[in-house]
Structures are given as C-alpha cells and as structure tokens.
C-alpha cells in the first residue's frame, strides 16, 4: 500500500510535467491545426534557462533558496516564451496558408536546429545539479515520503491550471483565443487580431513548458540537450490521449501517462515503460479516436 502511494505521487508529479507540456501542443493544434514538433525543444530550453539562471545567481552570491526559485521560474518563463514567439514568427507564420505538411517539416527542422544550437552553445555532456530543494515530507508514520520538489510540482501545476483556466474562460484574451480556435476568419472580421492571438498561444504554451522544464531540472537534477524529444513525443501522446484541443484533456492525458509510466516502472520494470505508453496511445486512438475528452470531429465533404 505504501509502495502504491509512493508510486502514485511520483506518477502524479511526472504527469503534471507531461500535462504542462501537452497544453502547449493541444492549444497550438487547436488554433492552427499543426503539430508543433519543436515544442519539446522549447521545454528543453526552459530547463536550460532555469539551470543557467540558478548558476548565474550562484555566481552573483544569491543563495537564498526561495528567492532563487522565484527568479528561476520568472526568468525561465520569460526567456522561453521569447523562444516560443520567435519560432512561430520565423518558421510557422509564413507558412500559415501552405500545404499541411510544410509547417510540420519546418517544425521538424526547427527542432533539429534547436537541439544542435543548444549542443553547440552549452556542450553535449549532461548537466548535473545538486538538489536545490532537498528534504522529504513523511506521511503515514514515515511509510511514505514525498520529496518537497514533487509536492511543489503538483501544487504549482494545480495553481497554474487554475490560473490558466480563468485566463481562457474569463478574460477577453481567452475569449479571443477560443474564438480563433473556432473560426479564424470570422474572429478576424469581428476585430480580433488573429496573428497576435496565435503568437500569444505560442507564448503561453512556451511559458508552461518552461515551468515543466524547470521542474524536471529540480526533480531529476540532470538535463541534457536531448531531453526534449522523448518528453515532446510523450506529451503529444498525452494531448492526443486527452483529446486534441481540450485543455483539461491535455492535463488528464498527462496524468494518465505519468501514472502508467510510474506504475509500470514500479511493478513491471522500467525498460518497457515507453512501449506501454505508446501501446496505450495506439489502443486509445483505435477505440476512441477523439481521445478521452475530445469532441467528435465531423467530416465535411
């Protein structure tokens, strides 16, 4: 039972990370109908920015952990958003009305570019970091211990989700975003600046991915330039699992994948956890092609 709870908490924190990345995929897919293949790389950049910020703060002599964490979070979200914005501006916006495959190839190119860019700039070796937020919270008389980092990840993700849901459902920005998702042309006619909304969608997705990147850095304490690919693929799987275009779906998909991975590693063995994830994806797509929370698509002739 204790082991089960332990895995449950590990899975939830991992799922929170996948969910945060998946939101970026699902929003972009919802609004311009493309797989933003470079999104995994954006998450990797967020992770690196957080690492570099921490090291820079250390070099400046700021070692008070709460302040360092807040600055890391802010810096990572800010700079990563700029990367998200720039990628959209350079590689996707000129291809807005192109054949469907063109933006996908452009995105794959961007992803390869960003990986190698990071490899050249920061080196190919993996970057280890000593735990910034050590310590465990023990519950159930010490049978289950939850590290503060994992707890913080779950809490922060919940807070971000609440804030984000309010942003999308209550503000004029969110209204414009949803309008563009339904019908870009009509939204444009009604005075919504569609290009700006699309840019903002990328910025929001990148900011959330940056949070995920920072949390991965804190939990695992080691990153390299290649982490974006697998996390990207799994998060996209999460987005598809939850139903592409649905924000709660992305989060749910992320949590489901995180739990599967965690329990599979805990009870079966960690070698085959990726196979389990992808098999699940195939099964869901076959039996429920719109995902868990997706709306059924109507085929227009």
């Amino acid at each position, binding site marked *: 039972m204790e082991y089960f709870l332990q895995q449950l908490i590990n899975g939830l924190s991992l799922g929170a990370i996948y969910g945060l990345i998946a939101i970026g995929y699902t929003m972009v897919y919802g609004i311009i109908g493309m797989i933003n293949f470079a999104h995994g790389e954006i998450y990797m950049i967020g992770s690196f920015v957080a690492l570099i910020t921490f090291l820079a703060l250390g070099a400046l002599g700021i070692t008070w952990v709460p302040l360092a964490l807040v600055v890391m979070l802010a810096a990572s979200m800010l700079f990563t958003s700029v990367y998200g914005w720039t990628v959209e501006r350079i590689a996707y916006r000129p291809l807005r009305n192109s054949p469907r495959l063109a933006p996908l*190839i*452009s995105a794959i190119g961007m992803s390869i570019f960003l990986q190698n860019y990071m490899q050249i700039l920061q080196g190919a070796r993996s970057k280890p970091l000593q735990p910034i937020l050590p310590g465990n919270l023990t519950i159930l008389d010490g049978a289950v211990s939850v590290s503060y980092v994992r707890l913080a990840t779950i809490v922060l993700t919940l807070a971000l989700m609440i804030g984000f849901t309010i942003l999308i459902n209550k503000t004029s920005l969110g209204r414009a975003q949803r309008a563009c998702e339904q019908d870009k042309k009509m939204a444009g006619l009604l005075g919504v600046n569609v290009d700006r909304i699309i840019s903002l969608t990328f910025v929001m997705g990148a900011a959330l991915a940056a949070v995920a990147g920072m949390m991965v850095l804190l939990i695992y304490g080691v990153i390299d330039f290649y982490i974006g690919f697998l996390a990207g693929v799994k998060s996209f799987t999460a987005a598809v699992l939850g139903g592409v275009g649905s924000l709660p779906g992305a989060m749910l998909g992320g949590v489901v994948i995180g739990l599967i991975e965690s329990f599979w590693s805990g009870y079966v063995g960690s070698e085959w956890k990726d196979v389990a994830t992808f098999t699940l994806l195939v099964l869901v797509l076959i039996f429920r092609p719109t995902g868990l929370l997706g709306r059924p698509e109507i085929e227009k002739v």
Partner: protein
Amino acid sequence: MTMPSHAAGAPPHGAPHVAAKAVDWSGSLRDAGFAAFVALLLTVPLVGLRTIDRPTGLGIEARPEEVVASVLLVFFGRLGLGLIGQGLALPVLFLALAAAAVGLAIPLPTQVLRLVLVAGGGIIALRAAFAVTTHRSKLTLAERDRKMDRVAAQVQHATKYIAPVAFIGAVLLPMTPLADRQLLDIGILLLTYIMLGWGLNIVVGLAGLLDLGYVAFYAVGAYSYALLAHYFGLSFWVCLPLAGLLAAFSGVLLGFPVLRLRGDYFAIVTLGFGEIVRIILVNWYQFTGGPNGISGIPRPSFFGLAEFSRTPAEGMAAFHELFGLEFSPLHRIVFMYYLILALALAVNLFTLRIRKLPLGRAWEALREDEIASASLGINRTNMKLAAFAIAAMFGGFAGSFFATRQGFISPESFTFIESAIILAIVVLGGMGSQAGVVVATLLVIGLPEAFRELADYRMLAFGMGMVVIMLWRPRGLLAHRDPTILLHGGKKPATGGAAR
C-alpha cells in the same frame, strides 16, 4: 557601425516605381529596434552565459561580446532589409559592402565582430544586389511559386533526357579513374537514401499518408538479415527477400489497426511505432544484442557463386579468380554500389509503372479526395494497406542492404532523426516527384557529407536548411505534377492539389 549615419543622409535611390514612396525612417528604426530587442532576449541566457564543467561542479562564464555582436547583426540586418523593401537598395548595397570590407581589412578587437561585419554585410549586400538588378524589392510568394512551378515543369520535362544520362553516369562511375573508395562509399550512401526516399514516396507522395516511422521498416529489414544470418547462417541472397517479406508483414501488422486514423493522428502513431521498434531492439538484448547491436554480419557473396575475399571459405570460389582479375578490395565496394543501384532503380521502376495501374491510380485518387474515392467504390483500407506494405518491403530491402554493407548494426542507426531525414527528402523534393527525391538527397545527404569537417555545425545547418527551403518553397523544390492519366483532350487541373 557606419550604416545608419551614412544611410540617413543618402538620397532615396532605387527602382522608379518604389522611389516615389517616402522612406519611413522612424518605422524602420522601430522595427529594427524591436528585432534587436528580441535578439537580446534570445541570446542573453543561452549565448551570453555558458555552463562549463569544473571539477567542483557546474560553473558558468559570461560571453557578453557574442550577445552584443548578435544584437548588432540583427539590428542592422533588419534595418537593411527594411530599407531595401522601401527602394533604398543601392545605398544599402554600398554600405553593406563597405561593412564587409571593413571587417576584412581592418584589424578588429574581437573575431566575433569581424564575423558579424563580414557575414552580415555579405548577406545584406547579396540581398541588395538582387533587389538592384531585378528592380524588385521582393518577389511575392505567389510569384515565386509560379516561377518555381515553371522551373519544376521544365525540370520534369527535362527528366526524360536527364534521367538516362544520370543513369549511364551512375553505371559508369565505378569504371572511371575518379572512383576511389571514398567516392564509392558516398555514392552507396546517397543511393541508399534515394532508395529509401523513393520507397517512402509511395506512402507519402502517392497515397498521401504521413509516415513518421519509416525507419522502423528499415530496422526490421536490417535486423531480419542480421539475425537470420546470426542464428541460422542464411546467406544474404536468401535473406534479402525474407527481409522484405518480414518488413512488409510488419507494415501490415502496424497498418491494419491504424490506417483508419486520419492525418496527424496517423503520423503520431507511426512515430510511436518507430520508437516501439527501437525500444524493443534495445531491451530485448538476449535476442537482438541490445544497445551493443550485432557485429560480424556476413558480407554478400557474388550471387552465391564467389566471395570477395582473397582466401574464400571452403567450397567457394574467389571473385578475382573466377574472373581472372587481380585481387582488389575495391571489387566488393563496386559490387555493393551496383547492388544498391539496382535495388534503387527497381523501386523507381516499380513506382513509375504502378502509377499507371489501377492500384496506383487508386492511391492518387485517395490522396486527392478520400471521401470521393470511397464513394466511387475504392476500398480505402486495403489500398492504403497495400501502399504501406509495399513501401515497408522496399524499406526492408534497403535495411538488409544496410546491414550487409556495414557489417554491424545497432539501434542507434534507427532513431527518429533517420525517419525525419527520409521524410524531409521526400517533402523537400516535392511530394510524388521521383526526380525531386534525387535532388533533395543530393542536398540533404550530399552537402553535409561534403562538409564533414564542420561536424558540429552540420546538423545545425541541416535543421535551418529544412526550415528555409520550406519557407522558400512550401510545396517542395520540384513539386510539379501533371496528372498521370488524362482524358483525351481533357483540361489539366491545377497542380499541387495533393499537398493540401
């Protein structure tokens, strides 16, 4: 550094029809300033601060001069492009050339600044020179597309003559004195990718299915041969068809459940399948050798008649003795070269012929409009399954060739990036265009191979190149398709409907 002050005093000079407009200085400067600000934000954390490995742990060092250089480059680049757009091409050309000359001639405090001046000045000068000579500030996308369509149509027309020449050239290549080991190796590599590109073209170009996991079939083919040879001692010539069959079978196995999915879902499932195959190869180490791969894969014999070694095994003739030649290690390479050439040409011939058969026509119809073809009684699933299986079979052939050529395979060779490269070849060349695959392979594989010294920057340029080609020509370089079949006297429909 001299650009803005000089340019400010320069009179508007340029093509007559744009010179009439007043130059919007504040707008251009604001635009350039914004671009420079974005560049600043992009470069401060990642370019300006580098992590370095110290014995005590990770350290960090600052590189402010590279940040300043990139910001300046972006600022003046953006300003220059903006001014070219407003008809100031000639002064910008002079200033850019001057900047490049300054960078070349005068010793500067840092190398970075010099690079910025020379490279930035050179690129802007080229752009400006283009604008001056054509009297156009910019071709619109539609104009460029039409122009490229014409070029592509001409190329396609010329292919009738170029193809035989290229074929004869390829056949004669090993006989020329130029052919050393290195050139033949590159030739084999290029032909392998051309074959894979042609194979994938059946799925992507003809049937219109986006397959992101083609490398899985390549891996199945390679491992089929390696394992059959390892455990049963079967020869290459027995395994080649078996590898193709096994790959086709795995194509059907994957295709059957997922072919009902549409578009991007299909793409992501194929990607997942590719990863599953790779993970199985890594983890099932008792059988596949795991991450260490399989080594000592036997080389092919000369159609089972002779071997390409100085001292052949018991009961086998040696190739050089059989033909009365001097022994040369090059014989095997030349044989490999002809083998992959024949395999690639077989794929090409198959594709060219099947387009005219009902199956090929059904694929193209499905690609153009799935619902309409289904209404006309085409069995969607079976047709797609056929495309998938056939392409997988060719991938399997290429894979077993790869295994026998390398003599060693490991899961490392079958990562997603390989799938991406093969797909890039098909899409960059122009989907459905057989000649496009060849051109794109020369670009994507040949160019990086030629610049092997620049190891680190190769993949960087590769990624950027994919983006740039897509921006420049979204439908692929040689995307021009006449319909394979026309009714007599029928009008040609607009091209490129496929790529929607």
